[in-house]
């Protein structure tokens, strides 16, 4: 395996970079879309169930189908990375919007009433009180979305773009185990590292949760 890495460091390095980019850009985009969407589902309770159900169905579309299908829908090239980014953004939103909504809904109503009584307006209350309290739940969802994105990117290799996944298809075609192993290990390490970073960030910005 070391031998393989030594001989193919260029390819592996490029695959790793692509993998990171394809997995994390959708996390950022998805997070940015999920916050307002999740808030809407709480602000207007009638939207909650329709939104949750829609996301549930979106989440059950196989990633391979979405990857293949988006070029037709978006008019992009089959080999364009945009397809992967859009597909994974959809998954991220499907997962995170619900988490944001559930996190906000779980904020103790007494705390919200207290904040209102002290004179917070709606928006200020959201950013200063509700979001911080919901943060542990939201970040837990972000961890799940990040880790599953990193492992899902590789499915893209079946249509020719997939970061470390290309090591899988290559090894599979050549019936050669080394690249597959390298791909799996790097992918898992990447996911573990990303997970760890989010946990550390969470500990830093929500010190009150450590007491419990």
């Amino acid at each position, binding site marked *: 395996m070391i031998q393989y890495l030594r001989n193919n460091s260029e390819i592996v390095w490029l695959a790793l970079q692509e993998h990171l980019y394809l997995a994390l850009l959708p996390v950022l985009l998805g997070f940015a879309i999920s916050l307002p969407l999740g808030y809407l589902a709480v602000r207007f309770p009638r939207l909650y169930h329709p939104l949750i159900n829609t996301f549930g169905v979106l989440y059950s579309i196989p990633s*391979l189908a979405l990857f*293949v*299908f988006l070029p037709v829908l978006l008019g992009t090239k089959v080999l364009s990375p945009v397809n992967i980014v859009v597909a994974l953004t959809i998954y991220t939103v499907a997962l995170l919007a619900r988490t944001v909504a559930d996190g906000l809904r779980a904020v103790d109503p007494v705390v919200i009433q207290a904040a209102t009584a002290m004179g917070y307006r709606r928006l200020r209350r959201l950013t200063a009180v509700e979001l911080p309290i919901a943060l542990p739940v939201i970040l837990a969802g972000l961890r799940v979305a990040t880790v599953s994105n990193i492992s899902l990117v*590789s499915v893209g*290799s079946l249509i020719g773009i997939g970061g470390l996944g290309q*090591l899988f298809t290559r090894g599979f075609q050549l019936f050669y185990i080394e690249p597959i192993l390298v*791909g*799996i290990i790097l*992918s898992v390490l990447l996911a573990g590292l990303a997970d760890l970073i989010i946990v550390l960030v969470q500990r830093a910005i929500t010190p009150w949760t450590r007491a419990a």
Partner: protein
Amino acid sequence: MNLSYLTDPAHWDLSAPGGIPQLILSHLGYTALALLLGVIIALPVGLYIGHTGKGSFIAINAGNAGRSLPTLGLLMLMVTLLGLGLLPVLIALTVLVIPPILTSAYAGMRTLDHRVVDAARGMGMRSWQVLTRVELPMALPVLMSGFRNAALQVVATATVAAAVGLGGLGRLLIDGLAVNDYSRVLAGAVVVAGLAVLVDLFLALIQRWIVSPGLKGS
């Protein structure tokens, strides 16, 4: 892009080997087998860890560790090691369903009201009676949500079986892609998503049937 592949009655021939009904059947077959194996392996372990509190670290981290394993890579690794066939597919899919089942079995046992368990012991139930008559029925809602989660994931992911030459609805995606037949790809996507919704609905009905009404709303 259109639905012509999906709506063509020829593709719904029950006996045709590559027809949609046959593909659904094999897809459900992989799903059911992987779930069965997952339950056999993960349920006792999760229940044990949750019941005793020993090894909580494993249960808490199993979820994220399992999610971080790329199923496609695992599948291709298994095929390279074991050759083509059902076994590598089953292994890869079973590895996928173990974490949610393990984690939910653990969480279901951990979040039980310990006062109720204490009452059960105090009334003279033996250890296995406490487990089967009190702990399991009370943990069932959490257990079922983990199982449904696992089922959803495996229905969507079983499509990769086609990537290593097996059947299932992934065939429509892979073969459609190979010949640029996007109507076939669309048919595959729609049928898989529909199947996922139906499976979840079916499990929701089972849940309603086996979970005591006394536990609703909690």
